[in-house]
């Protein structure tokens, strides 16, 4: 038996490698059998792999699900009537989205873990919060997108939560001026999605020569670099632009998937993303053997949180590399790594596709 509460009291970046390996071996073994017994699809997959649960493998050899599977199936390890809310990944219209079913307990744990991780950079005091988004994304409360879930999730770290964009996703300059007037000489926090901040905030301010009141505080942002890497915008350029338009000099990127909400990865003071006590990352080559440090491969993500759906061990379509373990100059334990965006879809040859 494994209970997440065992590690809830610890500082979230505090467990050294050897202890972590033991924890993940035990925790994931428990989650494997939990989902095997409660999720028919998960069982079917492990059976097809001829997977022996009583092996002595270490957790890097445990089976993982491809993340796209959550778009194709409603994978549940709970009874349907126990679903408390469903998270959806944000997807463009027409594309399939992930559907993540949470029961009360799992939703609760996600919030707790998110709080633990994020409070390491924001502290425990709630600060005035400026969300770089429009309030209208929250309107459909029954259908949580990753964006609205992110905003709601992070809103607990702020007070006087104010939205920087109006319903048309344009800068609401009066609203921002009112916000800064209310909080003169106070540190603030700002939250948003990377591509929205770039396009609807930074670019909009530059294009329209808007003069923003100076902000002082921390910005947390995440949600995919794909659109920005197409525009050749990297992390340092992003940071520089945020500072130039707003004065915010502490810009922190986070990485995570809707399949593993809660146990997110935060950028440290050295610019690397870190695993916490609740999460792990493994980088794999195309044959699924594990990469060495500084070798780019497919990103596998592990979380000790998911109990209501089998999302504890997934392989993504992102590419990344691990830089090291436990010895990051920032002082935090855990693996530290870099994400390099999506694995590109080269055009597959063949005659089964469309005419566009």
């Amino acid at each position, binding site marked *: 038996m494994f209970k997440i509460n065992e590690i809830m009291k610890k500082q979230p970046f505090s467990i050294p490698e050897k202890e972590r390996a033991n924890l993940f071996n035990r925790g994931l073994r428990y989650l494997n059998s939990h989902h095997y017994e409660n999720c028919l699809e998960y069982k079917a997959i492990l059976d097809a792999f001829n997977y022996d649960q009583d092996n002595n493998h270490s957790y890097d050899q445990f089976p993982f699900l*491809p993340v796209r599977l959550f778009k194709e199936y409603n994978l549940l390890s709970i009874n349907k009537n126990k679903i408390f809310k469903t998270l959806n990944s944000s997807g463009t219209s027409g594309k399939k989205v992930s559907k993540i079913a949470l029961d009360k307990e799992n939703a609760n744990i996600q919030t707790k873990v998110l709080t633990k991780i994020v409070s390491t950079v924001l502290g425990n005091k709630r600060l005035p919060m400026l969300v770089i988004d429009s309030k209208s994304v929250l309107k459909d409360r029954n259908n949580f997108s990753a964006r609205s879930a992110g905003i709601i999730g992070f809103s607990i770290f702020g007070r006087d939560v104010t939205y920087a964009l109006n319903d048309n996703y344009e800068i609401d300059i009066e609203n921002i001026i009112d916000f800064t007037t209310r909080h003169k000489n106070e540190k603030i926090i700002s939250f948003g999605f990377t591509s929205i901040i770039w396009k609807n905030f930074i670019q909009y301010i530059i294009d329209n020569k808007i003069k923003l009141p100076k902000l002082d505080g921390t910005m947390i942002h995440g949600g995919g670099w794909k659109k920005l890497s197409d525009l050749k915008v990297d992390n340092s350029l992003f940071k520089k632009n945020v500072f130039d338009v707003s004065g915010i000099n502490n810009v922190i990127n986070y990485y995570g998937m809707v399949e593993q909400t809660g146990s997110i990865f935060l950028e440290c003071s050295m610019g690397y993303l870190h695993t916490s006590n609740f999460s792990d990352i493994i980088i794999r080559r*195309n044959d699924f053997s594990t990469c060495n440090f500084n070798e780019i491969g497919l990103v596998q993500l592990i979380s000790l949180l998911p109990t209501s759906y089998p999302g504890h061990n997934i392989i993504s379509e992102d590419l990344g590399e691990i830089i090291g373990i436990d010895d990051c100059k920032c002082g935090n334990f855990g693996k530290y790594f870099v994400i390099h965006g999506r694995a590109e879809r080269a055009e597959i040859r063949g005659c089964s596709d469309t005419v*566009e």
Partner: protein
Amino acid sequence: MAGLKELKSGVVVIQLNRLDNLNIVAGTENVNIVTDKPFCSSSLTFLHELSSIIRKSTEAKLFPDLMAFSFWCRKGNLEQFKKDQINLERRLGRGLVFHIAPSNVPLNFAYSYIFGLLSGNANIVKVPSREFPQSEFLCNTIDDLLQKKKYKILFNNSAFIKYDKENDITKYLSSICDVRIVWGGDSTIKNIRQFSTPVRSIDIAFADRYSICVIDLEKLIKLSGEDLFKIAGLFYNDTYLMDQNACSSPHMVIWLGKKNKSLRNKFWKILEKHVKRNYEMESISVIDKYTKLCQTAIDLNTPFELINYDNLIYRLSLNELPENIHKFRSNCGYFFEYEVSSLDEISHVINKKYQTLTYFGLDQTFLVDFIVNNKLHGIDRVVPIGKALDMDLIWDGFEVVNSLSRIINYS
């Protein structure tokens, strides 16, 4: 919309330059609907000259598909095709063929064009809007060649066009063509079918298909190591060269004869050598295949044994053959296999989706008899292992030249 213009001679001309957002990449902007006899000498000379230009080009050598194309349209091959035809002297092209080629096969448009050309038609060919260096090369080469005086008639009745998702253009060209040829997946074909064609015109859809390979174990066992390596190499060519995504690439291997697991293992092991040596697997293809594997585990109601060769080959061995097995196809090295003592054991799954049967160690007429005598709904093509990707003028059950031309009956 564009105008049809009738010349004094009675020839109808389609003025493509009147269409918005359309780009002509080769041929004319005023397409004359002039027909000819199938295999007319100017089309044969043109294709022969095209073939030799490509074969002499150093740039073309970079693209195996371009080389295969030039080899296919060389004089000798076309003469052979001509010999196989009957009643050529009383056939004429149907008129205008509108070709819609798939977006992800660079040179498919050119094969489609040759179908129309050899049948004696005027042709408007939609080239994939995506950029492929080999299709750009081929369009330029065709365009240059068509400029020659001797090909004036061909120039006047050929247009290669590009456009993006412009339904208006598809709608217009559909409304005036005598034959519409669409290559693509089911949803693409359905989408294009919403645009009606004239009542007398015919619609040919080369839809998504499923293919299999039958190997006689008792013949395979007699091969020397060297020959076994060759056969596995031919199988590699049939599958991995087009990422196993061509309709005619086998998705399932049927092992015929006395059960022999070690021989099967040996075959796959040798195939793995070919794949390791020649194939570059993309990370995203690995994820695609792995996802498909999990979907198969969830949705296929029959248990299977999985053997994974470093994600290069997924080999899914079946103990029984479910009727819907064709729905579980994937690509880039994803194979089902099934052992039988007689081909009758697979006839219950063969449906209209099945296109090509490649074989090793069997008699061609025996296989054709198997299809005809059992009145199977599928399998339009039986070719030896290694020939899966060879284009033919009989395709998907159509005799292309006969379908694209009309015959003058007399009695």
